[in-house]
């Protein structure tokens, strides 16, 4: 009786998840699998797919000597290395401040979070006006304050990448901020009071009581931030289109350009595999680091 009920339950379960599983396989699993296969071919474009042949690791060797790919790889790394710590620190700092005794907390929280839901394209149009090197309000203000050589922002080959990162932090920090704020509100009051009775000052209280309790949140947010930082096609495409020159061409832009403008889908897939491996390695390192620190 019970075993037939069990079997019935399992049958219902598979019935319920089958539509989802089919979609998941087609739209999530198959692309990755296909990406691995395509990366080993010299496929140019879909219309000429029948002329595709298997070339082993040829695409991977080509990447090593491809200056444009190396530039995109370097830009992606710079972007992530700047974005992740900035968005984490700013998010935590804002959460700690907003968690103090203040008036109008929900209003302030909403204002800081608002850019997170905004449309990147619309926002890019606004920022490119604000940051216009000549007429933009920001540079006009800087010049009024006596700065003689105001930065070129998105137009300067040296400043463009870091400007995009700053706009990205402005837009994305709401996630880190809100998550940290919720975690801070979960810290038990008794723990803080006990530490204060023991004579801990505010900094010590944060360093030795609050921050260790935020460890799981921090771990999760770092992983999320890293993945977000590699998901930067939209923000770069709408702000700079990879320019000026190749100054802000990151991996996703390079992949799309290789696949659709240069019509080399096989080579583009190999470049995408580099991105996968990057995410896997970073996540694995994080995971090991987290487990190790839990031992003591």
């Amino acid at each position: 009786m019970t075993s037939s009920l069990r079997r019935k339950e399992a049958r219902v379960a598979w019935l319920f998840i089958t539509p989802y599983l089919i979609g998941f396989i087609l739209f999530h699993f198959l692309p990755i699998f296909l990406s691995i296969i395509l990366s080993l071919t010299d496929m140019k474009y879909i219309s000429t797919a029948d002329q595709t042949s298997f070339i082993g690791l040829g695409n991977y060797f080509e990447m090593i000597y491809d200056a444009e790919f190396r530039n995109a790889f370097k830009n992606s790394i710079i972007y992530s290395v700047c974005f992740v710590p900035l968005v984490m620190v700013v998010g935590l700092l804002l959460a700690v401040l907003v968690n103090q005794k203040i008036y109008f907390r929900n209003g302030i929280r909403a204002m800081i979070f608002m850019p997170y839901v905004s449309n990147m394209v619309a926002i890019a149009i606004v920022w490119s006006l604000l940051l216009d090197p000549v007429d933009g309000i920001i540079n006009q203000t800087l010049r009024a304050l006596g700065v003689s050589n105001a930065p070129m922002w998105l137009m300067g080959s040296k400043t463009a990448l870091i400007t995009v990162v700053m706009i990205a932090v402005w837009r994305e920090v709401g996630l880190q901020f809100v998550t940290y704020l919720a975690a801070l509100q979960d810290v038990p009051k008794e723990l803080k009071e006990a530490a204060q009775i023991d004579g801990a000052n505010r900094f010590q209280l944060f360093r030795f009581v609050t921050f260790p309790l935020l460890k799981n949140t921090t771990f999760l947010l770092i992983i999320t931030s890293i993945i977000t930082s590699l998901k930067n096609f939209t923000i770069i495409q709408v702000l700079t289109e990879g320019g000026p020159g190749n100054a802000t061409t990151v991996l996703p832009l390079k992949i799309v350009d290789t696949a659709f403008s240069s019509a080399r889908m096989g080579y583009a897939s190999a470049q995408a595999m580099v991105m996968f491996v990057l995410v896997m390695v970073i996540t694995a390192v994080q995971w090991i680091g987290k487990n190790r620190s839990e031992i003591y």
Partner: protein
Amino acid sequence: MKTKKKKFGKIFLTAVLFLFGIACIFPFIFMLSSSFKPLNEIFVYPIKLIPEHFIFTNYTEVFSEKYNFIQWYGNTLVMVFMIIVLKIGIVTLTAYAFARLRFKGRDVLFLVLLSSMMIPPDAVIVPKYVIFKAFGIVDSMWSIILPSIFDVFFVFMVRQFFLAIPETLSEAAIIDGCSHFKIYSRIILPLAKPAIVTMILFTFIWAWNDYMGPYIFITSPEKQMLSVGIKMFQVNNAVDYGLQMAAATLVLVPILIVFLFCQKYFIEGIATSGMKN
């Protein structure tokens, strides 16, 4: 004495954070004010947020027949609606099975689904294009709708929510001979309203804001979505900034209104899903 000092500190910190908050939303304020200005007023320094000559022509121009703006608006609304409806059905049914039913391999399967969240979507765009081409859905709305309804994140979120609903409720129904589909649709779904609302809101925002999908998969201008549409709009009207600001405002206003009215769901949704991981 001490309470006075404390009160001053509270006011001071509030003022600092309030100014910071204003700085965060300044681009939106600038956009709104510029959309009502004639071109020669936009770059005036020092900035005047209230336009000297208040005009509506930027808006009437955006909606004129010269541009596909109304068409893009319609396309985007239809797409968002389809995604929301299909996603609710598929995601909640799947989440129910993972939360409430026992079957072999369930936990392993769930882990496999979760691990796919680590893949940056920007990296699978080429194979996706190849697959969509084979299905014949390139340059159709379905190339945006289909991949987003089989969402992993919300299966996880809704499952967490279902797990928190007491098991005794559905056990009683099983003894009464209710089918699992009835338990799902009559008991669990109505109780899961907050989770479903959160899912609808986030889906709305993400689908509305999606740029890469339509940019890659949709080629005909009349089938295009708003995000890519206003980018083309910007490129074609490079110096008409008032017009661009009006277009940007029209794209942002629906989501900002939704956000302001439902911010509780957004913020709680993020906080709880972030915590439970």
